[in-house]
């Protein structure tokens, strides 16, 4: 009996061990890939600022003066049915503002009781004005922690 006590203690120790595997960020992002009409990857040449309107009516800047990028990571609201985003493109001679509306379904996501609450999303529709933006297409409707998959393909009217 004495010989198996260490074995029993080891087994109890193994049973009692636990690990916390929370993601570093519990906020998910939509990823916009910039493309030309030919399908080639596009690089942002003008300065782009993306903002939205908070519940209290004030503006919140989500991306501030991005330039020379090929992708954009934009936060998405937890539980709103649709997000309204303002894409302000500032060139040498002009500034244009396009409104992008992203409609979605929100799915609560759970990792562990130790981890903060998070939501995953399923994009149902996207629409926009066309001052500088030619079109936005849904590439992958599932918005999760995986940032390697682009949610949208964004086409500007001319190489911006």
């Amino acid at each position, binding site marked *: 009996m004495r010989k198996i006590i260490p074995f029993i203690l080891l087994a109890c120790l193994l*049973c009692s061990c636990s690990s916390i595997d929370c993601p570093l960020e519990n906020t998910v992002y939509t990823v916009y890939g910039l493309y030309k009409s030919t399908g080639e990857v596009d690089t942002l040449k003008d300065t782009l600022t993306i903002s939205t309107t908070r519940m209290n009516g004030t503006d919140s800047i989500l991306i501030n003066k991005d330039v020379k990028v090929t992708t954009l990571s934009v936060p998405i609201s937890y*539980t709103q049915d649709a997000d309204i985003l303002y894409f302000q493109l500032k060139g040498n001679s002009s500034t244009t503002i396009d409104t992008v509306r992203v409609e979605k379904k929100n799915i*609560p996501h*759970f990792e562990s*009781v*130790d981890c903060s609450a998070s*939501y995953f999303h399923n994009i149902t529709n996207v629409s926009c004005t066309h001052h500088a933006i030619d079109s936005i297409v849904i590439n992958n409707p599932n918005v999760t922690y995986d940032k390697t998959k682009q949610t949208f393909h964004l086409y500007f009217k001319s190489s911006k």
Partner: protein
Amino acid sequence: MIKLNKHSIYISRVASSLIALFVMIGNIDAAQPKKIAIQKRDSIPLMNGFAVSFDVVGAAMMQMGNSGQYEGGLRLNMRNKYFPTVELGYGKADKTDITTNSHYTTKAPYVRIGMDFNLLKDKRSSNHFFLGFRYAFTSYKDNVSQPEFKDPVWGYNVDYSCLNNKCYYHWVEAVVGIDAKIYGPLHLGWSLRYRKRIAYDEGILGKSWYVPGFGKSNNSSLGGTFNITFDI
């Protein structure tokens, strides 16, 4: 008239003696009854009774912690060698994390069926050292909620909750344990179990925190039981 050589006579007498001797030996061997090794048939009956058991570890976990299970088992004894087993249990979890205030609850029954094999050489002993396997299944619903909080970007209030999220788990277990007779029909014993998930669905939440009968949700887990068993 042929006169026989003395040597020839001697040789023939020796040869005939030897022949007679061999024949005699053969007859003696044939006369004695053959000893056939007959193995005694094992007198342990094929159906050697039933036993019911109750797990103490799961019940203690239920009382002292935020998760656990009540579990009983029915075991058939076949020649003190094979023990087909059915285990039924009810697992429950109710956990609130003090950091995140995330509240998780679930409760559901589960079932395991399998067989234990007594590895002791002395099959007539009332004590057992066994290896075994189980196939297990549970279907359960879990609930997760957190107190209302603000969306960090838009500032809206977020009411995070998901109720009655349907899930299921199939898994297999490798079991090793002992079972010792204490007095009369009373046995005490323990087992260690390695559990391996083989099929599952954790619903729209994506993950469970506790799976009744399996433990904390994962690809595999290690667990144990301490059983009080009564022979019937």
